[in-house]
Every structure is written in structure tokens, then in C-alpha cells.
């Protein structure tokens, strides 16, 4: 009997985390969900077991507690085949402009924590010589915008980290995927004005992550329209860009 493939989802209680876990479980993976509040993950674990008859484990993980990372990784019963980080914090840009603590939390939640934990997993996967790392970054990291550059700059850092890690890890048999979802209808974006045709639901992102892993894609814009939108935004001259409102 061949053993089943396993995936760990960091940030398992988020809407995208739940969707990714469902997509992988449906494809036959056993699942580990990791999040700050393990009790809150219980109903999602029950959901995955009932739907797909898979094995689900729950683990405590706090992306701001970097000191716990080594213990967390070493404490897992087995090294997973796929590691997905969906952790992130949108925060409030206006507050982050004057509140250093808030800005720090945004930066650490979107760059420092996710990069360090995926870097740590990458070393273990490279030592084994197989595996896939998925970082969920953001189109907001493609260019800093007046309305959310604290979040955007942290995502930019995370995207750059993933890009470098990919180049290095590919030589060691480990694949790294960067996912840029664009607008997604989730708790994070609730109440925000989203542009309908550019907005997707969480299950679409979950499915895109699974197919990116299976197809060994490098950088995935969940909706293809975003690749074009961001190409335009990235190529606008700074003199024009700074006059635009968004």
C-alpha cells in the first residue's frame, strides 16, 4: 500500500485556508491544519473528515511567535509533501501610518513570519529532496499603492523571498509556488468595494493552489485578468502613478 500524500495548511482557519484544505483533501491528500486557535479548527477538521474520509491533524501555530517555529516544525509527526502558507493580515493602512505597533504587526504577519516558516520547511524538504512550498502573496506586492503600501510592501518582500527560494530550491528537487489571488470575497475583504469581474470566491483560489502544485507552476495569478492589470500598473511611469488615486 502506498502512503497517501500530505499537505499542511498554515492559516487553516482563513477562508482561503479552508478552501485549499478542501481542494487537497478532495484530491486525496491527508491534511494538517495549523492555526492560532486549535479549538476553532475542530469544525473544519470534522468537515474534511466527513466530506472526503481523510486523516486530519490539528496543530497550534502563531506566525508572530517566530521563536516557536523550530519546535513547531520538528514537532510534526512527519514532514508533509506540500506546505502552504496562507497567513496574512490586511490591517488598516491609515492606522499603520501613525501606529508603529500596528505597522509592525502587518509587516511581520505578511513578510517576516511567512518567510521564516517557509524557509525552515524548505531546508527540511531540500534535505529530503522532494516537496512543494506554496506562499500566498498578493497582487498588492507588485507595486506600492497609496492606499495600502504597508501591507503591499510586506507582500512585496514575501514575493521576493519566494522568488529567490524558488531559484535555489529548484536545484534541490523542491518546487516553490507564489500565488497572487487578487480580490477574493473573504472575511478579510468584507465591506470593501471590490471590482466584480476581478473578484473570485475562496474555492476558486483553493482550486488554483491545487492545480499550481500539480502543474508545478511558478507564479500564479488566480484570475488571469490580474496578470494584465498588474502588468499595466507595474509599467506606468512613477510620475504618472503617483498622481493616480488608488
Amino acid at each position: 500500500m502506498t502512503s497517501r500524500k500530505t499537505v499542511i495548511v498554515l492559516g487553516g482557519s482563513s477562508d482561503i485556508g479552508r478552501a485549499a484544505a478542501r481542494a487537497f483533501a478532495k484530491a486525496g491528500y491527508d491534511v494538517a491544519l495549523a492555526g492560532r486557535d486549535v479549538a476553532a479548527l475542530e469544525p473544519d477538521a470534522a468537515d474534511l473528515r466527513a466530506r472526503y474520509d481523510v486523516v486530519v491533524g490539528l496543530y497550534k501555530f502563531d506566525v508572530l511567535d517566530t521563536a516557536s517555529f523550530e519546535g513547531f516544525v520538528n514537532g510534526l509527526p512527519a514532514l508533509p509533501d506540500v506546505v502552504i502558507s496562507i497567513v496574512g493580515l490586511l490591517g488598516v493602512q491609515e492606522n499603520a501610518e501613525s501606529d508603529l505597533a500596528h505597522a509592525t504587526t502587518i509587516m511581520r504577519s505578511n513578510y517576516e513570519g511567512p518567510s521564516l516558516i517557509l524557509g525552515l520547511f524548505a531546508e527540511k524538504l531540500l534535505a529530503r529532496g522532494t516537496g512543494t512550498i506554496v506562499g500566498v502573496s498578493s497582487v498588492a506586492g507588485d507595486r506600492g499603492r497609496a492606499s495600502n503600501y504597508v501591507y503591499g510592501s510586506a507582500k512585496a518582500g514575501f514575493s521576493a523571498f519566494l522568488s529567490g527560494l524558488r531559484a535555489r530550491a529548484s536545484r534541490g528537487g523542491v518546487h516553490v509556488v507564489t500565488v497572487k489571488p487578487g480580490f477574493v470575497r473573504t472575511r478579510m475583504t468584507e465591506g470593501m468595494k471590490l471590482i466584480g469581474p476581478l473578484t473570485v470566491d475562496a474555492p476558486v483560489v483553493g482550486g488554483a493552489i491545487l492545480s499550481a502544485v500539480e502543474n508545478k507552476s511558478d507564479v500564479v495569478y488566480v484570475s488571469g485578468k490580474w496578470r494584465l492589470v498588474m502588468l499595466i500598473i507595474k509599467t506606468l511611469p512613477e510620475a504618472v502613478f503617483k498622481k493616480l488615486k488608488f
Partner: protein
Amino acid sequence: MTLVSGWGRFPVVDSELLRPRSFEAVGEAVVTGSVARGNGRAYGDAAIGAVRTVAMTGFDRVRSFDPVTGRIRLEAGVLLSDLIDTFGPRGFLPFVVPGTRFVSVGGAIAADVHGKNHHCEGGFGRYVDSILLRTGQGETIEASREENSDAFFATIGGMGLTGIILEATMRLRTVETGWIRERVISASDLDAAMGALDAGDSSTYSVAWIDCAARGRDLGRSLIYLGEHAGRGELAEGIDVFPSGKNPGLAVPFDLPAMTLNRTSVRAFNELYYRMGARRAGGSHVVSLYPYFFPLDAIADWNRIYGRRGFLQHQCVIPQAGARAVLGEILGRVAARGDASFLAVLKKLGQGDGILSFPLPGYTLALDFPVKGDIMNFLDEIDHLVVAAGGRLYLAKDARQSRATFEAGYPALQRFNAIRRSLDPAGNIRSKLSQRLFDEV
């Protein structure tokens, strides 16, 4: 406030839309004038809160599933499409599905939706064993046929007015495949159509698509689709035992101008549809469950076909005795008018299960009309025919019937209201529909 409407896009009204993330938050969200909303597929004003609308689609977890008995416990926001996609490949399907799979379990219970098998297998509520209900009074109760049975039978078909359905335990049916063996019968007029439906009583699934542009001798000409679940042995070699349900590929990108639907275009479409169907008549063949049960789901946003002002669906049920004359009269008036839907749906219903469930033994006819001109007066006239024949209208599709029509059609209303008052003495749960039809003024 947010502008909210049902699938028919009429009426469009202000209601605060809230999306709670926990059952505690659902309780806190209820103020005077609240009602739950599933996936927004009720046509009219049933899932719009008088003041506040509580969106439940975020609650989409399966709690437990027993693969031996097919018994499943789930949150009310799970969509039937999700259930079918997840459990179909494992050999389980809902016993009852309506014409779209994009409805939530909570909505399906609240409307006690019926499918093409109501004449022999009953409605959605028949397969629900218990419900976790957050009442308007603020209690959370488990209701079943044995425990809190009044609340249970008032909630099945109760249009969300007994409280907010949080979870349900229901039974799924076992199937060998995701395919249906379909037999098409062409009927040249209404007598033949009703006769074919009567003859199809022993078929698990049966429905007739009526060409409602046909007049005179052709009045009521239809295609009758009978169906049975196909076994593995009936599938050709190499076919997937469970076909995949693609998401709608085709979408209606914008509201079509009202003139797209005119007498000529509808007649031409129906002529073509009838002839193509009639050619397939006689033999039987195997079709995927998706086009069989959910023909309109193939076109996303099809409600835009009727233009920006929206449309009304009129679905009545007429008791068996005397149904022929009344249906003939209704179809005659619709055909003379010439602006109804491409196709009308005629099927047989059995006894309903909930106190306020729509079905009663007889024939149900569903028609679509764009919102324009004197349509309201026209439908009022049709309603008089329905009431005189002892029939009623389907609340999940209604946006306009009068109190008198409603009260005449639902004789168990007093009993329902008494149970509703006992669960919610302060009257917190109120929808636009309940304000229009139920609540004391």
C-alpha cells in the same frame, strides 16, 4: 443599507445585509425585522429581512456523515451543488433537488422545495430528520418529528419565519451512478400532456415543458421527460460513473433589452425546442444528472434575460379534480397575451409535509413574466382562477400575490401563526414577504 432582491430581481428593497461568522453572531445579528438568507435563489421577497437580512452561506461545513446510512449533519449554508459534487462520487445524492442546484440546505428546508419526484417521493423536508433552529425569541432548539415537533413542521416550508435554521440532519439516497435514464414523450396538446404525466406516475422523475406560445388546437403541447436513476450496467464502457458538474460556462453578460423577448422570438424558439425534443421522443437514453435536473444552471445569471426591471414567476398548484379546465383557461390567456416565458413547467405534486408547504395533490404550473405593463393585473386575474379551483401559489417564487389569495390558498395558516407566535412572541423574525402577507397590520 444595501439594496437586496431575490432571483427575479423584483422587488429591489433596502435591507441591512449582515454576514455573521459564528452561531453566536447569528443570534446577536437578529433584531426586530430580521430573516435568514441562503444563496438568494428565492425569486421574490422571501429572503429579504424587513430591516436586516442575515446571510448564511458562510456556514458551509459538514458536521458528520455516515456512509452506511447516508445520514448527514450539516450547516444550513451548504449548497446542494456542493453536496452533489462532494457526495455524488461517493454514491450519495439528495433525495430531492429543485430546478437549480445553487440553493442552500437552509433555503431548501424553509421553502420545502420539490423536485421532479414529488409525486412519488415527496419534498425536501421529508428527508430532514432534525433541525437546529435559532428562534426569534433567542433560544436555540433542536426540532424533529418527536422533539419540538410543532416547530419542526412549521419550519419545513415555513419560509424562514420560525427562526434561523443553523444546522440540519438529513438522509441522502444511495445511487449507483450520476446518470439518469431519460424517456421523452411528445404531447400534442394539454390533454395529451396531462395524460402522459398521469401515465408517468410510476416513474421516479417526471416533468413536462409546455410551449406556452402554442394556441388553439396546439394549446398545451409539451415534451414530457420521465427519468430513473441509471445503474452501472446501463452505462457504456469507459463512461465516468459520476459525471463532473461543470460550473456554468455560458453567462448572460448584461441585462438584455426588454424587446429581445417578443412574440416572434419566443414562438420561434419554442417551435425549435418542441421539434428537436419530439425527434428524440419514444426511445430512452442516458443523460448526466446535471442537465436532467438543472437545465437552466448551464447559463449563469439567466435572470438577466428578462432585463433590468426583473421578472415574476407565477407558480400555482391546482388540485387534481377540475385541474384540466383551469389549466386550459390559464394557458389560453397566457398564450393570447404572448409575453410569457419561453417554456412553462407542468408537473404533478403529492401531499406536502410542512404546515405551510406548497405542494398538494394536483398539477403545478410555473410561468415567467417580465415586469412590465399591466402584468400585475393580469396575474391577479389568474390568481382568481387559482383560488376558485382551490389552489395556491408557491411562496418561494412569489413577489406580488395578495393577502386574500394567500389566505384562501393556505388553510393551515392559523395553526402556523400560532406556532410562530409561540416561538417569537415579540415578532422579531420578519421578512418583506411576511410583512406583505402574514403580519398583522
